[in-house]
């Protein structure tokens, strides 16, 4: 049952991922990305990482991609969609990078013999919180600083446009 669900949603995630790259219209591509995120969330859930599954939906599907859509709607990229033709160099680089990432991913799994994720400890929300506030406190705080800097930067950039 779990295996069948995993295969179904892994396949769907790959399909949506391909669509993100293949579809010309930015709105369709963004919606495909929502599909990828939804499928990933199901995969996390199947692995027992329920918190991660929900956060995936809340943060990416519920917030980040809604902003993507907002921007796409405001900019009206319909003209952009028609003339979007990738440069041959871009295409070549994309293929090389894709191959490299694929090799790295598959290679890591094969060489390192990583344990299956289902055999790892299932992290509860409380355990995750404790780790974030003890062992990983410094990286956690560093990330919040980075996000704050990004927010202030975005605000400043937007201000310049108005003047």
């Amino acid at each position, binding site marked *: 049952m779990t295996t069948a669900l995993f295969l179904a949603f892994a396949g769907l995630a790959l399909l949506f991922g391909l669509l993100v790259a293949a579809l010309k219209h930015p709105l369709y591509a963004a919606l495909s990305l*929502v599909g990828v995120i939804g499928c990933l969330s199901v995969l996390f859930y199947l692995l027992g990482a329920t*918190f991660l599954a929900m956060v995936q939906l809340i943060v990416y599907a*519920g917030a980040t991609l809604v902003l993507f*859509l907002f921007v796409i*709607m405001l900019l009206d990229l319909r003209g952009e969609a028609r003339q979007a033709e990738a440069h041959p160099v871009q295409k070549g680089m994309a293929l090389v990078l894709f191959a490299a990432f694929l090799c790295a991913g598959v290679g890591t799994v094969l060489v390192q013999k990583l344990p299956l994720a289902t055999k790892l400890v299932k992290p509860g929300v409380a355990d995750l919180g404790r780790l974030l506030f003890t062992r990983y406190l410094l990286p956690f705080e560093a990330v919040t600083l980075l996000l704050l800097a990004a927010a202030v930067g975005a605000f400043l950039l937007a201000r310049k446009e108005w003047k």
Partner: protein
Amino acid sequence: MSPLLLTLAITVAKIAVVLGGVLGMVALMSWVERRGAGLIQDRPGPNRVGPFGLLQPVADGLKFLFKEEVIPAKADKWIYLLAPLLTFVPAVATFAVLPMGTPFTVLGTVVEPLIGPSSIGVLYVLALSGLSVYGIVLAGFASGSKYPLIGGLRSTAQLVAYEIPMTLALFSVVYASQSLDFTVIVDHQAGAWFGFIPRWYVFPQIVGFFVFWVTALAECNRVPFDLPEAEAELVAGFHTEYSAMKFALFFLGEYAHMIAASSLITLLYFGGWHLPFAVPAGNLGALVAFAAFAAKTGFFLWLFVWVRWTLPRYRYDQLMRLGWTVLLPLAFLNLVITVLVCRPGVN
């Protein structure tokens, strides 16, 4: 029957019952809404179809089914058709994690009045409420017309702005009960202070309740926050170009959203199925518990109607100012005070 099959059969039965119940309530609410409007505005309201006009929703449903399906020439066809579904599905799917009473026994099998897993209920509700933006935004974009687009853009800003105080208000309750599980949150509210004041979170969390209730009105696009479809400015906002069953799906979604929001308020702040006095054990107790839950939820549904026909609409800038400068700081303050006052695990 094997255990897996039995679980599957019970789950399917639960989904059927809850879905049927929700859709039935939507039909009933569409009647209550208009009769309530009549009552408040001193006019009869729909009273021609059936006794007290009770069959009006059936007539409306038939009308929606037989109307011509129109797809505007300038519409983006696929997204235009997808948008009503994206509004309807998250609204209904919310009910998967809302417990509606205490377990009861059928033919020797104990049945939980809950469809999905309960451990992450609160997060699941937040995730779905985040997803409910898509239907409106995409409807506004795909219609290929000005008013829906403005309605869609407004609603994105509104929903994103009001989601933050709602989440913070929710987290105060989560902190006070130390759980993301609705059943645990509700059971924390059992019993009474001094023997007569129910231990409902609405008393210690009165500020949180206020913030949650106001943001729930906004998240459901209800008056006084129905700016995505403000008819005086935007014809009908994001669903201007929709007709027949596609419009009906938006309508169903909005009312399902309202029912979900009322259930959430009941579970989080009004003790769910708990009453301030003892209830009998067994199946009778489960029935009483469900009745208590339904009655409380029904009251908040009526409150939605009451507010709609009483208050005028906010202006857009007032809406944004209220969200960011009043509700957000209030919710933050409430969370900070909750964390300072509540000792973990103690009510």
